[in-house]
């Protein structure tokens, strides 16, 4: 994996604080700027609990929870991607190789289909879809898919290649089932699913934050414990064992952690491929040779990318928002390409 690292030319101790400041700045920007123009003085007033009621409700009930949800989801995806890339030793790994995205998509599609047709069959009225259940359903689907892949790979030896290959196959089957469902569905209410599929932070509220926060806290608390195992999991199983690593246990732990992080985030905001796949590479690039900085940078960059891109999507689309998944890819890819071109 050492050869696989993109090592940037600039190695500076200031990288991490710089990006952390940038993330905080982006957070502030995302709270202060929005489709509805609210003067900064009113925003500050609303944040401290004063000011007019409309401004307060826009800031406290719409913008702030949305931004916080985005930050948490960004951290989840980025860390999950980093963990998976480390343990599968594959730079192209992302939460979808554990079937998380596809399992969640299938679960959400099946759930919505069920809801649309069972709720009020044959009527033209728009039923209120039970969207408040989507995070739990999506997460469950993602976790089940991850569990199936783990069980399939576990039956022999739990090698990185085997789990990658099982992941490809199970993921493809689940994805096919989901597309089959969608194609057989017809056009009724399909836009909700499409929005979810491309990742959206639209109308995310404090409930979503409450849903995500326990996973974020638990995940970040466990990460320091996984630090040494992660360094060792880069090697083949016999070598890692010779360093005293209980390979199977630590491999499974890292896998379970990344699955939980990714599945909870997918449930809330939908799959955002770019963050899970590319942000760890960006972090490695900026960290250069200081490998200890990769993890914190991944966390900070995950939050930064999602916050900034959500802001762009909100402002550029005006009334019709551009989904966060689309914006992250369209804005993030040029950055990545520029970095790739710089590295010889």
């Amino acid at each position, binding site marked *: *994996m050492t*050869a*696989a690292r*993109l090592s940037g030319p600039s190695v500076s101790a200031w990288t991490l604080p710089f990006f952390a400041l940038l993330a905080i700045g982006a957070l502030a920007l995302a709270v202060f700027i929005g489709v509805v123009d609210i003067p900064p003085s009113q925003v500050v007033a609303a944040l401290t609990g004063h000011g007019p009621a409309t401004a307060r409700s826009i800031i406290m009930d719409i913008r702030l929870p949305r931004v916080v949800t985005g930050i948490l989801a960004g951290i989840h995806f980025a860390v999950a991607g980093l963990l998976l890339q480390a343990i599968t*030793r*594959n*730079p*192209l*790994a992302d939460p979808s*190789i554990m079937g998380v995205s596809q399992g969640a998509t299938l679960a959400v599609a099946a759930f919505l289909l069920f809801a649309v047709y069972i709720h009020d069959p044959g009527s033209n009225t728009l039923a209120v879809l039970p969207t408040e259940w989507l995070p739990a359903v999506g997460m469950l689907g993602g976790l089940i898919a991850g569990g199936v892949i783990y069980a*399939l790979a576990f*039956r*022999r*030896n739990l*090698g*990185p*290649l*085997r789990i*990658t*290959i*099982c992941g*490809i*196959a*199970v993921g*493809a*089957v689940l*994805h*096919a*089932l989901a*597309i*089959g469902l*969608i*194609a057989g*569905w017809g*056009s009724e209410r*399909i*836009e909700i699913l*499409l929005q979810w*599929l*491309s990742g959206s932070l639209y109308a995310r509220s404090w409930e979503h934050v409450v849903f995500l926060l326990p996973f974020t806290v638990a995940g970040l608390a466990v990460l320091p414990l996984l630090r040494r195992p992660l360094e060792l999991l880069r090697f083949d199983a016999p070598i890692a064992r010779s360093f005293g690593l209980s390979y199977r246990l630590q491999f499974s732990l890292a896998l379970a952690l990344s699955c939980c992080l990714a599945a909870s985030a997918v449930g809330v905001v939908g799959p955002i*491929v*770019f963050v899970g*796949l*590319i942000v760890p*590479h960006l972090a490695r690039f900026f960290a250069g040779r200081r490998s200890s900085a990769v993890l914190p940078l991944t966390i900070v960059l995950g939050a930064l990318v999602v916050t900034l891109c959500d802001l762009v999507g909100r402002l550029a689309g005006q009334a019709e928002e551009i*989904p966060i*998944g*689309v*914006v*992250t*890819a*369209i804005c993030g*890819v*040029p950055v*990545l*390409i520029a970095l*790739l*071109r710089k*590295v*010889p």
Partner: protein
Amino acid sequence: MTAGTAVGKGREAARSAAMTIVLVVVAASVIACGLLVGARPLSPHALLPALFWPDGKIDSILVWTLRLPRSLAAWVGGAGLGVSGYLLQTLTRNPLAGPGLAGVTYGAVAPIVACFVFLPWLPSVYYPLVGTAGGFAAALVTFWISHGGTGRPLHLALGGISVSLFLGAVVTYVLILSGPQTTSLLFWLSGGFQGRSWVQLEYMSVWVGVGALGALASHRVLGLLALSEDAAAGMGLQLTLWKPLLLLFSVLPVAGIVSVAGPVAFVGLAAPHIARLIKPDGPGWTIAITATLGGLMVATADIVARSIAAPRELPVGIITALIGGPVFIYLVQRSNFTSTMGVER
């Protein structure tokens, strides 16, 4: 080399050749059986005259302009995707690489989807040209990012995947804008050979043929590259010449196939892995088995897709994954492969 290993070598090659022939024969018989089924089933009695003495009646039209070219197109498409996937997996040294990795798939899909939504007056006969042009444009960008693929394998993989992600996001956005056409677009995005006939078959065959023959001709180079790039360079291989060339061979078939049949998922990714599980004798035979296996997968899936819910059609990409996925998992479970493919280290 002793006589014993030479004999062993010959036996290995004979086994691989037999495997290839078996795969071709199975595919031919599947296609032949596929001629019988469909929205209007044919009896074997009716098939033979319609096949060998076409008389312009409904049965022979069914066979000669609908079912046969379509199945052949599916076979050629699958073969091309398999070869392309194999080349990209070898070049990037990554088991997650597929035919779409160089950005060609989405490069072909994005302009076609955009034409479908924004330029509805454009006749669909131009879609293959639009798609091929788009695929090559995207591949050029990937070439540019990865310095023609001469840099590290990771560079090519990341460059290609970022181009794919970018264009995929554009496609998603167009889908959201498209409103009522979304479902038919989603259907097309799962790939299919509905209504494809001789014209499309010829169009595809050229691209696939050049790519596959090129890959076969450079099988020695691929064998060296599979060891490691340093080893290949040490053996006197000109990496700056061969890597861009092999990348081109991997791009050609996909640009032809995707613009005709849409992105058929899973085959290009899985066929090389399954072929490696068979343990063929050298890269040349791996390419042959990958191609015939990919062809068999897609031809079978296409027949299932058009006959299981006839007269409705299912997207062929769904069937390839639904049939191929479990088979793949079974094979992976059964074999104890540890390093059939060098993982990027």
